[in-house]
């Protein structure tokens, strides 16, 4: 039998790769490298384009751009301090609320409080929150959250108006409803990453905790959560990153007022909302560079936050290695 195609030889004998297979392999590898490179190049190009367009504004306004609070096209004076402050305040508020809910959800969904099927269902439902488009959150905020929150906010203002955080009424859109909706939007990020962190706490640790007589709550609060803490912290930072960059829902809910006020119920603005509102109609000579500079600031803020978040998550998984 000399035919190489006979069933016996084809299945058992190793053959040197044919030219076609070699080319195929090499071609595929080149292709993957090209695509990987393209992604990196795209990012570089994006940053380059933004910086290039923003350059006139950066050299004209200098550091004053970061601390000024005017946005006047007519007088060509631009400052984004209210936007920076609004971005940080709305995101931190959202983070405070989102963390409380997110970590609680993560604990419930990871510590076998629920029957496995229900746990699976709820885990997926929380993930599903992340799939709701931003504009839907925005509309829902305007139609549901604002009317719901308004009476409470206004009674707080009437009874505790001396307290700076409650010093104005909530007329409609404002900082608080925006932060509340943001909190719900970052909930899936915080909940699912925290859940992963909690679930990856070794079973041995839990058993050891119960073994020395800890109650369930003691085991969760004093052993499991502290062990997963770096991971949870990473989740929070990534949630923060998402809140900072969130655009549509915030632009619809925050009121877009170029002011900084103590009151939670006063309207404010964010960098992302500024860009969403002004870009389409911006004056190409004066305003576009200023908007691009604002975009650059936003890019830097989110980049720093995300890098910090990823670093923390990496350290978390490294520190868990010893325990496993």
């Amino acid at each position: 039998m000399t035919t190489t195609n006979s069933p016996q030889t084809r299945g058992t004998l190793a053959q040197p790769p044919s030219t076609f297979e070699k080319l195929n392999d090499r071609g595929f590898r080149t292709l993957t490298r090209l695509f990987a490179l393209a992604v990196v190049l795209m990012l570089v190009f994006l940053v380059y384009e933004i910086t290039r367009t923003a350059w006139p504004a950066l050299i004209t306004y200098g550091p004053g751009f970061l601390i000024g609070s005017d946005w006047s096209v007519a007088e060509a004076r631009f400052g984004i301090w209210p936007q920076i402050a609004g971005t940080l305040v709305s995101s931190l508020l959202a983070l405070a609320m989102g963390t409380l809910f997110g970590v609680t959800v993560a604990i419930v969904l990871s510590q076998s409080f629920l029957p496995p099927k229900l746990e699976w269902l709820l885990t997926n439902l929380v993930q599903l929150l992340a799939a709701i488009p931003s504009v839907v959150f925005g509309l829902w905020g305007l139609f549901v959250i604002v009317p719901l929150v308004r009476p409470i906010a206004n009674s707080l203002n009437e009874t505790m108006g001396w307290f700076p955080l409650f010093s104005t009424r909530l007329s409609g859109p404002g900082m608080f409803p925006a932060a509340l909706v943001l909190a719900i939007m970052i909930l899936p990020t915080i909940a699912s990453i925290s859940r992963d962190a909690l679930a990856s706490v070794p079973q041995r640790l839990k058993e050891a905790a119960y073994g020395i007589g800890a109650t369930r709550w003691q085991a969760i609060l004093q052993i499991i959560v502290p062990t997963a803490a770096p991971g949870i912290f990473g989740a929070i930072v990534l949630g923060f990153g998402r809140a900072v960059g969130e655009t549509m829902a915030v632009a619809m809910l925050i009121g877009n007022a170029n002011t900084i006020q103590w009151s939670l119920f006063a309207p404010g603005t964010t960098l992302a909302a500024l860009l969403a509102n002004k870009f389409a109609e911006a004056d190409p000579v004066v305003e576009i560079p200023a908007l691009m500079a604002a975009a650059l600031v936003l890019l830097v803020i989110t980049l720093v936050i995300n890098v910090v978040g990823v670093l923390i998550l990496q350290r978390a998984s490294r520190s868990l290695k010893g325990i496993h």
Partner: protein
Amino acid sequence: MMTTTYSGAANPRRIGSPRHLVKAWPTFAALSLLVAGCADREVVTLQGAGATFPEPLYKRWFREYYDINPKVRISYQGIGSGAGIKQFLNGLTDFAASDAAMTPDEIASAPEGFGGVKLLPMTAGCVVLAYNLPGVERPIRLPRAVYARMMLNEQALPTNRIERWNDPAIVAANPGVDLPNLPITVVQRSDSSGTTYLFTQHLVEVLRQIQPDLKLKAGKSVDWLAGIAAKGNPGVAFTIDQTPGAIGFLEYGYTRVSGTPTAILENRAGSFVAASPQSAALGLAEAEFDNNLIAWIPDPAVEGAYPIVGYTWILVRGRYDDPKVGSALKAILRYGIDQGQTYAADLGYVPLPPATVEQVRQAIDSIEVANAAESVGQESESPPPAAASVAGSSRGDIEERIEKAVAGFSEDPHGNRE
């Protein structure tokens, strides 16, 4: 003449395929239309973009015109006056629309090949102050000094502010109306807009008379208006409806759809006037157009004239090198100032006065088109022949179409929202 052939069979889908096929095989008909469309080199597509203020009216015109001359297809994107001018000057569109006309700089920056830029007033409208006051049934009346002082922020007007609805100045102007003790929430535009330009231009004029020390400048986006901001006319209308105690400026048509109450404003002559096409027309009649056909009426003086009015322009090139595009555009513009004006009042706009129509017609005639004789639109050099066909169709048919247009218009505010 080509047009007469089609004016009878208004449905464009019938072109190129027998009637029974259309009924029996819609898919096939669509395909054959596609093929016909590709093969038929006489079909012209015009691209335009710009103001949202006249968008409902323009879309209506283009839809009606399509029935008259299906060989001309016009796509119009309501992306805002500023963005429209930008795209037009970059050569991305064949025409633009703007509520803030064009600045001399913008006119001067037109590329060489444009042969200059022509501004054509196509319709006019008014800006209303819409409000949300729960429990107040009668339309409120706002004196000049009051509404001007309501709208400014603290930096622009540190003293003499009117911040609550039961301010004595408002109560005095509205005897018998029980005004609530609510803070006034001003709703303004968050994007740059021609509506803002019309409104601030009027405010600046009023403030110049009552408080000359204020040095405020009108603009498409200003930093001296108070309150919260929302994107686009639809966004402002929506925010007002959602916010008790809100007041904001809107293009008239948008409140007609949503039923939001609008304030009766005191004009320069001291009379209180509600917004309507009639009262707006009185103010617009004062316009004196310059060489570029630009006119502003920041503060009409006639008794009974609504105080915040303005024209809106279509911007075209002085010369079109593509004869098809040029003559098709001239034909649709002529249609707009003739039959098009009859739709204006239905949709809350103000038809152009006859004298203005004549001026605009001359401007349209003066648009140069290379080799106009070979073009598709040539038959429309005479007044649009299809006029007869529209006028000839039954009354009920037209009424039905008006209803449809109004329904389409009422969808627009939501369609525009992002």
